[in-house]
């Protein structure tokens, strides 16, 4: 996919460009706010990665607001060292779709980019989520695998639904904490791991092919591939 990176730090942008290019994406880079706004409004992109503090007269939030006002709906991931809760709220209110604080891991970045692009591609409301023989009927909130009903607790259901909506993508611990629990800090212990293994027991135990996989050093993935 085609990305725009608006980031003034030389080292940071090199790192991101290198990683994303190696993953097979096309990356345009703007080092100032002015260039960023120009590129973002003149070229079509699948997603924009936006730093907040930028030289060149206009900062990241200014660019986002300008784009949104002109009707540009390209998904935007805000990348910022401003980690405060209030700053996050400000970023999302300006029109950003997700907020990642520096320093971050590359795995976290790509996972979030994938999630954002996927979300913007999913147009109409779905009633059924399917992956191989695992299926969620959203309205009765019914989960079945190979026709067999699986009983889940409310929070487990929410967690599985999120994983299903991001099937075939890496989902990080932090993403799960933010999107499923609405928690924006890192608990010292890995609480998510246990939730995942409980779901894994329910959907994978007794079936030949496991669907919920742990991606080492990154997170988890619900996948039908091996």
């Amino acid at each position: 996919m085609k990305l725009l990176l608006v980031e003034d730090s030389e080292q940071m942008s090199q790192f991101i460009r290198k990683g994303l290019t190696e993953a097979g994406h096309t990356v345009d880079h703007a080092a100032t706010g002015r260039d960023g706004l120009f590129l973002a409004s003149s070229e079509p992109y699948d997603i924009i990665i936006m730093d907040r503090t930028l030289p060149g007269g206009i900062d990241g939030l200014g660019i986002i607001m300008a784009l949104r006002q002109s009707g540009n709906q390209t998904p935007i991931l805000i990348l910022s060292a401003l980690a405060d809760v209030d700053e996050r709220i400000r970023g999302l209110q300006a029109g950003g779709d997700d907020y990642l604080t520096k320093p971050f891991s590359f795995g976290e970045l790509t996972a979030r980019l994938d999630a954002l692009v996927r979300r913007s591609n999913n147009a109409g409301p779905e009633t059924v989520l399917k992956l191989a023989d695992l299926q969620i009927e959203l309205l009765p909130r019914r989960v079945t695998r190979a026709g067999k009903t699986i009983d889940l607790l409310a929070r487990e259901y929410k967690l599985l639904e999120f994983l299903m909506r991001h099937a075939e993508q890496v989902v990080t611990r932090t993403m799960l904490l933010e999107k499923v629990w609405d928690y924006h800090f890192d608990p010292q212990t890995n609480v998510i791991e246990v939730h995942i293994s409980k779901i894994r027991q329910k959907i994978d135990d007794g079936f030949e092919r496991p669907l919920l996989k742990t991606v080492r050093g990154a997170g988890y993935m619900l996948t039908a591939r091996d």
Partner: protein
Amino acid sequence: VISLTRSIAFRAGLAQAALATLILALLAALLWWVITDRLDQQMEDVITGDSRLIATLAAQPDPKPAIQDISERVGSDLDEDEILLLTAPNFARLAGNLPAWPIDAPAEPGWGTVVITRGGIVSSARVLYMVLPNGRHLLVGRDLRARAELAEEFRGGLIGAVIMVLATGLVSAWILRRGFVDRVEQIDAMSQAIVAGKLDERLPVRARRDELDLLATTINRMLGQIEQLVGGVRNVSNAIAHDLRTPLGELRTRLEGLLLGRHVTGPAAEQVERAIDDTDRLIGTFNALLRLAELDTGARRSGFRPVQLAPVIEPAVELYEPLAESRAMRLTAQLAPDAPPVMGDPALLTQAMANLLDNALKFSAPDTEIVVSLTGQPNETVVLCVADRGPGIPDSEKPHVLDRFFRGASSSGTQGVGLGLSMVASIVTLHGGELRLEDNHPGLRILLVLPALKAAAGESRVRPSQRVPV
């Protein structure tokens, strides 16, 4: 609003009025004593003079000149102030304006006071009793009615003066209170806002430059200094954030870049991964320190709103419950449904809750129970308690547990840098509450005692805090 009896201005006014009344009473007593003394002296002088003249006449064997003189002086007229009575040695009346010898007249010659009834009016009279050489008795005196009337008038005047002093005292106290207390309350309201984190607020100083303006000026100067200090802390924090976190971030990127490019493999890659973990821990510690610094400035208080604690606790317990289960611990919540809301920041309270659970799970042994409870009295306090059956904290360590980077003897072998409880303590302090450590016999009970939101102030505004984006 301060009650009337507790107001300094009002009490000062009252005290002033009381003092004025006391002085007035002393003055009146002195005046009364001097005046009556002088009046009595004058009266006795007159009586003595009269008695001498009459006694000379009455001492003669023939009573007629004396009787005539007495009749001329007073006749039988009872309206006269002068009182005269001459009797024979057997006390039979010879002349005078009293019908008979008074029974309360002095038994021995000399001064005395008698009660007389004249024309139906009872009054007292000062009298001098003399026994003449020929055995006759002479009573010379003056009615004290005039003196009683004077006393009456004097008392009336005094009471009027006291009432006036009290009235002016109360009125001036009330006026003082209005002017003074209004301004003190203004200063108080402003100070509360400043305590709540609005450090740029200043007290109004008027052109009059009275004592309160002087105080306000000093307080404003103090506030300026506090703002500067807090700003300094914030600047240092921002400097840490920028100057230390940024290079740490770059270090992390470099390390991760090595792995991404597959430049390193095998055992070297493992070392790089561990270096990344170390960097993450450093970054985590910096983040926690920055957060603590931010909490301590109190600025976060400006975003406070009414929060029900049960919807904050429940998801946190739910998040940690499977972890507890996997370690064979039981995590249960006992939340009183009628616990009142508090004024606070749900994101911070959630963080405090998570830190407490992290802590309890870290120190508990398998097959033990961790109980989270919420209790509270309306308009008083809300108490959130996390009780575990771990090793507890020895009394000697209790004062230090909340210090930054403190790790107790029993925490060796566990993860963490010792900022978790400091964070909880800072969050509780920010909310105007208190963190208490108690023995759970065995284990530890950590209590967060938070002030309950006053029912009238927030009941209608309270909404579940769970779904707010943070």
